[in-house]
């Protein structure tokens, strides 16, 4: 099924449904791929920091030396 767009002209009040051009389809597919990359990267970084924080707490309790990043994560 062809992708379409709904265009609402605020001046005339006319609403049209128009089939997207191949260029528009390619553009929004690229945008979709980028959006998913951004989201995945953000979620991966959040998971990494959570794991680092857990590791830092364990080291602190055990009296082991922390890395600079772990120390920064704990005390800012």
């Amino acid at each position, binding site marked *: 099924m062809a992708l*379409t*767009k709904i265009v609402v002209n*605020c001046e005339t009040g006319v609403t049209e449904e128009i089939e997207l051009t191949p260029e528009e389809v390619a553009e929004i597919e690229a*945008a*979709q791929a980028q959006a998913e990359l*951004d*989201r995945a990267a953000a979620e991966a970084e959040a998971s990494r920091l959570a794991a680092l924080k857990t590791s830092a707490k364990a080291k602190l309790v055990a009296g082991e030396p922390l890395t600079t990043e772990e120390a920064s994560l704990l005390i800012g």
Partner: protein
Amino acid sequence: MITDLIASTTVGAGGTSTIEFTSIPGTYTDLVILLSARTTSGSDYPRFRANNYVSEFNKGQVLLSGGTTVSAFTDASNTYAQIGQIPGTTYSANNFSNSLIQVPNYAGTTAAKTYKIQTVFKDAGANAEQRFSGTGFVSFTTAVTSVQIFSSNTFAQYTTAYLYGTLKGSGGATVTVV
């Protein structure tokens, strides 16, 4: 403050990938878009842009949370602002997200345009949730005369978009658009 409904649309049975408002009057101080959306795919991440510019959205910051963890990222993709996740077939039937998109000073011609976007949905069936908050600005200074919400998938039937114009100040008389 005065708020007027400028235009609205509801997606029909065939769905659509893009909702666009054109020829927006420059008579208000802010634009506000309320979007209630669902996709025909599992879920989706639609985007927003103004004036169909493709290289001007480059200063966005996003906070994203799907539970107790909050992640942050820079929305520097240059072509649009992300809106956040909307539910689809992965989630309960008839579950829609709700988004608020605000573009202050949209009709000005000297200052860069700013925007803020908030989206939320909560799915009881899948016990899933998504909270999205984004702000940013664009580098173009021309007046915004069109806005576009688009997806590479399909917005489902009954997705609705309402475009409001807000006139700040005492009846708008005390506000100067720059």
